[in-house]
């Protein structure tokens, strides 16, 4: 880190998706919204706020996509 561009990390992987909403980002992926929980910087983002939550420089996003079995 030397003051250069910060990147967004999604599940640990650097991705260049600053400035768009969570909802718009998810549209570019194959995640099924029914099965996921999404945290930004270790805080849950309620599904009702995916549209209005804008991804910012340096955000760490974790997306859990649950699978069946129990």
């Amino acid at each position, binding site marked *: 880190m030397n003051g250069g561009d910060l990147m967004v990390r999604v599940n640990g992987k650097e991705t260049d998706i600053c400035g768009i909403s969570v909802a718009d980002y998810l549209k570019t992926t194959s995640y099924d919204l*029914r099965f996921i929980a999404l945290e930004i910087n*270790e805080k*849950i983002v*309620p599904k009702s706020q995916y549209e209005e939550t804008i991804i910012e420089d340096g955000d760490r996003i*974790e997306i*859990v996509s649950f*699978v*069946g*079995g*129990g």
Partner: protein
Amino acid sequence: MIPSKTELQNALSCRVGEDIALKLNNSRVAVLGLGGLGSNVCIALARAGVGRLIICDFDKVDITNLNRQQYKASQIGMKKTDALSENLLEIAPYLDIENVDKKVSEENIYDICKDADVICEAFDKAESKAMLVNFVLENMPEKYIVSASGLSGFGSMNEIRTRKMSDRFYLCGDLVSDVNDGIGLVSARVMGCASHEALTILRILTGEEDE
């Protein structure tokens, strides 16, 4: 001859120390879903001396459950809550169990879980898992939630691990093995994941939770 409550509590104290035994005895855990995960989690918690369990499932014991769930052939057709209570009380006769014979939805999660120190997600359907985890993290931020995803098939147990996702959210499993891919469910692997959940819960209750 069933031992007295004091005898059992002393026996637990001998193994883990009086402080931990007392902490566990005063704890309350809600386990939602009493299939391969939930039934095994409950047994591990009961053996460890957790004093109070809220156990929740709307279903009955089915013949196809016996390959991995902690029920007996003689219990087929019983409500899972009743059958599991019976089995738990044989292990831990003074366990305080609250049976909740309901299907969990966003409308009743709060009421079911409000008195629990830790909530254990032990459902089988991905959608139910996501619903519970989202609800608790959004609406009950003071609670710990321990969840599981990815425990199907015959993959190595070494792929199943526990991740701390955020301050009060732990996730156990391999994250990818989906029962809907037709890879089946086998007791040894399901128990391994249930064991990850149970130990995580015990670590939270005893203050060992970090790392």
